[in-house]
């Protein structure tokens, strides 16, 4: 297996320069602790909060179709970025012809 990914900083590179950060699934759901008095977005029921959190942390859809996913260019510029890729072909595959790329976050490991 070999394929390449397009780093928004470095351009196309071999996949072994990157580490996988899983599919895009949105930010971490807020925690709701009954003792804290915080009203979290998921509601105040701790069971609902736990369920929401575990769906977010553990569940993956694993569909053979293009998905947005996170990659870290660890052997290169050190940036986390999201890109669209089709796990069925291992190729970058922008959804609906849109431009792949996504947003960049962070800096390089200086060591």
């Amino acid at each position: 297996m070999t394929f390449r990914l397009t780093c928004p900083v470095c351009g196309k590179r071999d996949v072994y320069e990157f580490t996988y950060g899983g599919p895009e699934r949105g930010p971490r759901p807020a925690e709701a602790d009954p003792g804290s008095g915080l009203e979290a977005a998921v509601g105040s029921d701790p069971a609902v909060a736990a369920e929401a959190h575990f769906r977010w942390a553990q569940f993956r859809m694993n569909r053979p179709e293009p998905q947005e996913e996170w990659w870290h260019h660890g052997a290169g510029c050190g940036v986390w970025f999201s890109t669209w890729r089709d796990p069925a072909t291992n190729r970058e595959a922008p959804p609906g012809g849109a431009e792949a790329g996504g947003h960049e976050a962070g800096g390089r490991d200086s060591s």
Partner: protein
Amino acid sequence: MSRLPPSSTERIDRSRTVGFRWCGRALEGFEGDTVASALWGAGIRTFSRSFEYHRPRGLYDLEGEGSSQLVSIDGVPNQSAGTTPLREGMEVGAQNVRGDPRFDVFGLLDRLDRFMPAGFYYRLFHRPAWAARFFQERMRGLAGLGVLRLDVPDRGARAERYLHADVAVVGGGPAGISAALEAGRLGLRVCLFERRPWLGGHLDWRVRDGRPLAGEVSALAGELERIKSVRVFRHAPVTGIWGENLLTGFQCPGTGSRTDSGTAAAFDETHWECRARAVVVATGSIERPLVFEHNDRPGLMQVDTAIRLARTYGVRPGTAAAFSVGDDLGLEAALDLASLGVDVRVVADARREGHDQALVAALVGAGIDFRRGWAASRVRGRSRMSRVELAARTTTGSGSGATVGSAAGGAGDSLRVACDLLVASAGRQPDIGVLSCAGARFRHGEHTRTFELERLPPDVFAAGGVLRLTDLEALTSSGRIAGLEAAAACGADVAGALARERPRLADLPGPARGSSIVRGPVAERRLAPGRKAFLDFDEDGTWKNAAQSAAYAFDVPELAKRFGNFGLGPGQYRVPGQNLAMAMAEIAGRPVGSFAATTVRPPVIPPSLATLAGPNHDIHKRTPLHDDQALRGAVFRRAGPWLRARYFSADRECLEEIRNVRENVGLLDSSPLGKFRIWGPDALRALQRVYVSDMTRTRPGRCTYSAMCNDTGNIIDDGVVVRTGEDEFYFTTSSNRAGATVEWLRFHTRYDGWDYNLVNLTDAFASINLAGPNARGVLEKITDAELSDEAFPYLGCREIEVGDGVAARCLRLGFVGELSYELHVRASHARYVWDLLWEAGAEYGIRPFGLEAQNCLRAEKGHVIIGTESEQRVTLLDIGMGWLWDREDTASGKVGAAALRYCEGQSGRLKLVGLRVDDPAGDAGGGTARNVAHRPADGALVVDGDRIAGFVCTTRHSETLGWQYGLALVEERLAERGRSLDLYESLGRRTVRSTATVVPPHFHDPKGQRLRIAPEGRPRRSGEAPSQPAPAAHRRSPVRFDAAPARTEHRAGWNVVLDYESDRAPTDVMRQAGLVDLSHRARWDVQNRDIGTVRPFGLDVPARPGEVAVRDGLMINRMNGTQASVWHVGPGAAPAMPDGPHYTDTTDSHCWLALLGDAVPEVLESVTGLDLFEPGRARPFLTQGPVLHVPCQIVTWRADAVLLAFSRGYGQTLVEALLESGRHAGLRPAGERVFTDWIHALEG
């Protein structure tokens, strides 16, 4: 020697004989011979015995298409005789033979074939259960290829080469050369790979009407060589095409031309990879074997083998020859061999029509018995051929398995010919291996009777013989078209040229009509026909086996291939090739077109495993204290990327090292500890996110211990955090996690848009642990800082100066359970400080200690090591560290907090407990006598009845305690104090049971008094040490070249080598390549969200990542959106680091090298797959990526100057690997002057 008179096509040098040995016999060949041609020329006919039946096998092909021509060379098995150049002194041996290859004792297996039908091994020997192993052992003794000799060391140099091309061309025949020319003329980067040591393909050896055809392409090849952007790789087989046009292959160096062939060691091989934007595949065609009884006898060979023996190597393939062929090339070969004096007695052509009439007329004119619609049906003779039987085919079309009425005598439709050479071929098939790997699809064509290309993958094009073109004009024309199409795929505007060339090809002869024969005529009266008619020579797969496969319903090629082992041997797809589909069609009575071509998988031509393994550099990180520890007897081990000292004596229990720390003072090199600087308005929020504790409570001068969890609440890291400024922190991580820490923080804050900066200082700072009751006494001798318990308490952090004013960040911690100081000093200062401590500790008898002693010391203290006392089922709470968690904080979104909250109330989880191993001898009193009880190994199981209920993490014997203690993870119900646990181990075939008692997991000094107040240590041995001025501080580079310095200079504590003796070598280093260590030159990291507003040293940061600016002796490299590095490249002293939080001095973070000289591109393509010399890109530019798998910042300044910065720890081992990989290009160490001269020339 049976050599022919010299001819203009030959590639041997008859003036230079080469001596070698065959099975112990001294033989001779010529310079330019392959092993196979030399053997055949010396009269050797049997090369090996076959895989299963031990049949004698000779020289069938010269391309490594099967196992028949595999030999052992200098003790290394399975070397291809047909492609290995002959070398002086080679020891060549026959394979798969007991005794002489001519009289193999296992030859009788050939008679037992009826007991070995297809798949017999799996169908017969699986019941009863013992049978499989019993027969497996015996079978393996008999079958197989070659013998791997472990006493023979691997020979030959292995290298790697990473190439970049716009257009890669596979195959250097007329079509491939034409394609490469078209792309090359447009200025595109072209790489052409030819598996033979010369270009020209089949034209190289063909002679028609007395005229060598090589001249047809030599002019084109000559032009190709002159185009600068074209690179031609000879003797470089392609092993596969992978995703996005990555080509892989190997090359046997030193065999590229007539003049230097054979000079390279036989085992030297280079693995290469080529990333291409477009690929042209022009692999030509290969022969299809003719299948008939005993079609594997020595003396039977391919058309090309016979003609190449004669024309390339001047070897007489035989004296009296019969031909059974299926195309015009066979007829041409018969004529040519006859012209060379071989007695060609009969030429049978399986075709009834479609012959080149000129060739037929010439054959007849030469008095050769020519027979249309005839083919060989049987060979007589064993190790040497005595006779060939030929017969007329009675039917035409696809049914080739026709019968003949009688095979006796020479009557009418059959013929017996006495001969020692049978040139046999059913016809040609396209060499589709590389195309198939690339993902091309094929469909059987009625005209060519081969599997033709149906669909090509993106940016892959095909040309020439692989399309079954045979006309020379058509070959070159299709090559030109493919080259233009490939250029178009790279963006070149070639529409006009394509529009001119395509009609030209359309007017030329198209694909040749193919031959339908697969099997020679079979005599009706013969019993069990096909028993010795081989479809696959590698694994002795016969026609009969194919029929058996079909009978078991494995009746399509893909199934028969696996059931009957067809085409799974070294010959890969080439033998049987499409014969398998044609045979299955005939056996099953179906059209060939109803089958799909079997998929070819890489490597289509096998390289040696050693080549795939590569140079195998041992690249790892070393601490700045590595060399001194080695001198002190350290035994090192790999821990993550680092090499760390494990023991300092032969005592693997390290009792002395441990006792010394408990009672005196020891030194530990803990430099791999992760160290980080984080700052910015949102730095605290980022720490709050990843650490479980309340990080708002961190304060200056104080270490806050905390841990990180993952989303399931598993502890993954721990360390201390120190606040070093308003929005600035310094924190440590465990050594194993250091590499992933930046990634972890960035990942878990990726949606937040927070403004913080992070620098990894792991390699920039060494860490030295001074531990033991006398630690303070030692430290106070090298510093004026106040060390009293009041001024510098436990968990304090102080910035102190040691020795000659060297800055050290000193953390008072107690991982090993004693008074201890952790000194973080610049890596370049580490050796100076280490030496100071040794000097100061001498009077105490200070000793080093290693990882194992530290492991025991911390376990006695009950401190966990993540990954040893924790695993994926275990949360922070389970190992008793829940007190770290700030459970009230739900606002920070702490990673793992939700899981911890969920687990809080759960029962039945694993818990960490202390163990006291029960001693059956009754030494329960806690005495100091050595506990003799069995010590359960780390990993021993805790069992509860017949259930596994946990496991032992660590157990050790403690001299301190006088008993065996340990830490274990057990189910909660077993975790209560005083409970007895059953331990179970399986040691080989033995099982050992023992028992232990649960105790609190803090064995040594549970109240932690020894950490806080230094107990009275051992009195000093001598009187007060005289206070001496500290020696002058010095700094060290991570790199030490194995070269003699000629001129050095002291500069700001560094000892800089200006020249090495080797710099004065006759060849100027700039004509080759020099490696200059610039690690002493200053570097800084600049980070800011609005980096454009930061003007380091008054200079602008380049606008886009990858851009580099050079001004005032400083180079500024834009790394990404928020970060740049500044390197001092100029003459004179480096400026001081500007004030401001954006700057971090990273001089000690990296090893910094300059590669200078004309051969720099050649050196770099041996060590990195990065495209560092992309044409047209404005230089200098920055590339961030791996060199020999180490992440680097690389600045391509010019073609002869590249700068390289990477983690300092890798310095020495990466430099050694670079020098080794670059040796072929003349790379050698060079002094700083070479760099300053280059800069001077640049400015001048």
